[in-house]
C-alpha cells in the first residue's frame, strides 16, 4: 500500500496508483478542506502543495504524490494562523467559502517565493482559481496584507539574527 507524507505525517492509503490525489485526501484521509470543483484542472478548488508547489490534486495521480511532501489547507499552519489565513479573516474574504481553501493554497505558493508581489503578479498567479461568488478584490487585498505581514515578520527575524 502506498505511503503518503501529508501535512508532516506519514499515512498509508489503499487506492490504485492512478487515483486522483484529491479523492485519496478527501475520502481515505477524510481531510475535506480540499474541494472538488471541476475534475479538469480548470477551477483550482482542489489546489494543494507538492513539495511547496501548488498543484491541482484532481489532476495529480496518487503515484505522482508518493515520496513528496503534500500540504493541504489543514496543514498550512498549526492553528489556522498562516498570515494568509489571518488576512482572509481580516479582509472578510469568503462568501460561500467553497473555493477559498484552493485560493489560499494557490496564494501561499506565490508568497513563499515572492513576498512582495505586484498586483499584476498576483492576478497572473491567481487567474486559474475561479471564485463563483466573485470575491476577487478581497482575495487581492488579503494577499497584499499577508505579504506585508510576512515581510514585517521576516525583517524582525533578520534583525534578531544579526
Amino acid at each position, binding site marked *: 500500500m502506498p505511503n503518503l507524507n501529508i501535512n508532516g505525517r506519514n499515512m498509508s492509503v489503499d*487506492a*490504485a496508483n492512478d*487515483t*486522483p490525489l484529491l*479523492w485519496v485526501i*478527501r*475520502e*481515505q484521509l*477524510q*481531510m*475535506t*478542506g*480540499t*474541494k*472538488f*470543483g*471541476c*475534475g*479538469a484542472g*480548470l*477551477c483550482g*478548488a482542489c489546489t494543494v502543495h507538492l513539495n511547496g508547489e501548488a498543484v491541482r490534486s484532481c489532476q495529480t495521480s496518487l503515484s505522482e504524490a508518493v515520496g513528496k511532501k503534500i500540504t*493541504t*489547507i*489543514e496543514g498550512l499552519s498549526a492553528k*489556522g494562523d498562516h498570515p494568509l*489565513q489571518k488576512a*482572509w*479573516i481580516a479582509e*472578510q*474574504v*469568503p*462568501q*460561500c*467559502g*467553497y*473555493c*477559498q*481553501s484552493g485560493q*489560499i493554497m494557490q496564494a501561499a505558493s506565490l508568497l513563499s517565493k515572492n513576498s512582495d508581489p505586484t498586483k499584476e503578479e498576483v*492576478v*497572473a498567479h*491567481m*487567474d486559474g*482559481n*475561479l*471564485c*463563483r*461568488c*466573485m*470575491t*476577487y*478584490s*478581497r*482575495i*487581492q487585498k488579503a494577499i497584499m496584507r499577508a505579504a506585508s505581514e510576512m515581510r514585517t515578520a521576516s525583517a524582525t527575524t533578520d534583525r534578531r539574527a544579526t
Partner: protein
Amino acid sequence: MNTHVKITKDIEPADLSRRSFLVGTAAAGLALGYSAVPGLLGADSALAAPSNFDPSVWYSIAPDGIVTVTCGKADMGQHIASTMAQIIAEELGANWKDMRVQLASNDPKFNDPVLGAQITGGSWSTMMNYDAMSRAGAAGRMALAEAAAAAMGVPADQLVVRESTVTDPKSKKSMTFAEIVKSGKATKTFTPDELKAIKLKTPDQYTKIGVSVPQLDIPSKTNGTAKYGIDVMLPGMVYGRVVTPPVRYGATVKSVDDSAAKKVPGFIKAVILDDKTATTTGWVVAVANTYDNARRAADALKISYDGGPNAKLSSDSLLTEARRLQALDDSGLFFVKDGDTAAAFGTAAKVIEAEYTTNINIHAPLEPMNATAQLQGDIWHMYSGNQFATRSGAIAAGAAGVDPKYVVMHQMWLGGGFGRRLDADMMVPAVQAAKAVGKPVKVIYSRENDMTMDFSRPLTLQKVKAGLDGDGKLVALNHDVVSAWPTKRWGIPDFLTPSVDKKGGLDGFTVNGADFFYTVPNHNVRAILNEMAHNATPSGQLRSVAPGWTFWAVESMVDELAHAVGKDPAQYRIDMLDGKGANAGGAQRLRNTLLAAMGMAGYGSKQLPKGEGMGVACVSSQERATASWTACVAHVAVSSSGEVKVKKLTVATDVGTQVHPDNIRAQVEGAALWGLSLALYEKATLKDGGIEQTNFDTYTPLRMSQMPEVAISVIANGEHATGVGEPAVTVIAPALANAIFNASGARVRSLPITADAVKAAMSKA
C-alpha cells in the same frame, strides 16, 4: 401588481400565533412527527440539555452563556446565519463573542415567518426575518432581566442589559447571562400578543445592527473545517456518480450494459432511476465503494437511450418558437395592463420597436450538486446544502415513495447557491441508490453532470414597442416577455401570480421588474410561456431571476428612446421618475439613487476620450414590493474591432437599513460582477436537445484578470432593510450596453454581448 405568496408592501410581522415560540413548547411535540426523530439538527438538540434557556425556536442560551442561533435560511455565502444572529444579539443584549450559529433541519417550526416555508431566495431573508428575530431577541432579554431582578432583589425595569450582562446601575449588582441560565430562573413565557406588543429598539439605540461584526462562519472557511454537503461522511457510506443522458430532458434509458463496469474494483451496482417526481429523466447512478471507482464504473457503463421528444431541439428552435408565440395576439397573460396602449399607439407621434434576447445561463456553483441519503428505521436522513428544504424534502419523499414527514433534511453550508439549490434533483439519485444498495449513499455530480443538467436561466425573448408623444414623452409601452416558466415547474399554485384580468396564474418570476416605477400612462406587460423551452430546458431561478432580463429590455429601450428624441438618457429617466400615483416614494428613491451613481461616476461632467462612453441604468429589483433601489454608471472603452473594455462600474443602492455594512458591500460587489459576467462572458447553448457546455473551459464565468474597478455607494435612509444579494446583478448589462452605444454608436440587444455583435452594430450606426 405582483402579489404572489404572502408578501405585502410593508412586510407585515409574522403571524406568531402559528409558531412554537415559547419556552418549553419545543418539547411539546408540536412539530408533527419530527420531534421523535433522533439526531435532528437544530434546536431539538436543546431537548437533551434541559438546563439551556430557549427563549424561542431561533436560539438557545447554554449555562456557559453561549448563545446558539438556529438559522432557517440557507447560507450560501450571504452570511445570513450571522445576520440572523446579529439581529437577535441586538435586542437580546448579547456580546458578539458569545454568538454561535447552526443550520436548521426541515422541521416546520423553522419555516420563514413571512413565507411559511423553508425557502431562501429573492433577497428576502433579512427583510422578512428582521421583525421576528428582533422580537425573539427582545423576549429573551426581558426574560433574563426578570430572572436577574428576582435573584438580585431589585426592580426589573431599572436593569441594563448589555454585552451578555444584566446590571443594576443603582446597586451596582450584576449577573451574566451564564449565571442567570445556570440559576434556572429564566422561565418567562410570552403569548403571541405579548410578543407583538414588545417595544423594539429604535435605530438610534442600535449597538450591533449597522456594525460590521466579524462574520461567524468565516474562520471555518479559511481552515477547511466548514462542512458542505459534499463533505458529509457517514459510517458504511458508499458513493454514487450519476450518468446523465445526452438530452437535457425527456430521454429514457433503453438498456444498461454493466459488463465492463463490473470489472471496476469496488463497483456495487448501476441503478436506473425511476423518478415519479419527474425531476429527472433517463438518469443512471453508478454506485461503488469510492467516488473514483464510481466514476470509473460510470464511464464503463454502456447505456442506450431513447432521446425523447426534445432530442432535436436547439437554442435556435427555442428562439424561433418564442418569436412565433410573441407574434400571436392571444398569447400569454397580462402582468400589467394600465390604460389603453392600442389607442395610445394610434395617436403617438413616434413608435419604436425592438427585440431583446438573453441566452441560456448556467448557475455553476463551485460545489457540484450532491446529496447523501441514509435510511434509519422509517426515517430518510438527507444531507445536503439546499435552498428549499420544504420542497426538497418532498422530492426526496417522492423518490423514496414515503410521506414527506418521514424525511429529515440536514442542512449544510452551501458551496454556492445562486438559485441552483432551490431545485432538488440531487435527492432522487441519492435516495434511489441508497434504497437499491441498502447503505447510505453520497451522490456527487461531475462538473459535466452539473452543467448539462442545470436548471438554467431560460433563454428569453422580449419585444418592446414604445409610443412617444410630440414632446418625446413615453406614453405607451407594450412589453412581451417570452420564456420558460421556472416557478410553474414547482407545482405550487401560491407561487404563481394571478394575471391582472384574472384569466390565470402566470410566473411572476419571469416578468418582475417590468412593472417599473416610471410613469407611463398606457402600459401592458404580457408573460408568455414558451412551452417548448419549458419542456426541453427545465429552467430555474438564477441569481436576480426575472429582473436579470426584464431590466435588460426596459433599461435598453428607455435609452434608445432618449437618444431617438435627443435627450440625455439619465435626464429622460429622471423625468419619468416623477413619483405619481402608485409610484410615489419608490420613484423618488430610485431617482435619488441614480443621481448618487451619476455623481460618483462623474457622469456628464467628465470629458471622455474618443471610443469611450458612460451609460446609465436604474432598477427596482427584485420585486416592486421588495425593491432595493439600484443604479449603475458603466464606463467602457470600445475598440474598432468591437472589443469592450470595462473601465469602471459605479453602483449605488438604497437598502433602507444596513444590518452589516461590510457584508452589503461584499454582496453588491459580487452581484455587480455576476451582472458583468452574465453580460459579457457566460453563454450556454442547446444543440440536439443537450446543453453543449460541459465545464469551465467552455462555460466561462469572470476570472480575476477580467475584473474592472467597482465603486459602490450604499444609501441607508432609515427605511426597512431590503435585500442586497441580487439587485445589482440586474443593472449591469443595460448600463454596459448603453455605455457601448455612447462610446461607439453600436446598439446591442442580445446577451451576452460579443465583440462580433458590437462590430456588426457599429457598421449599422
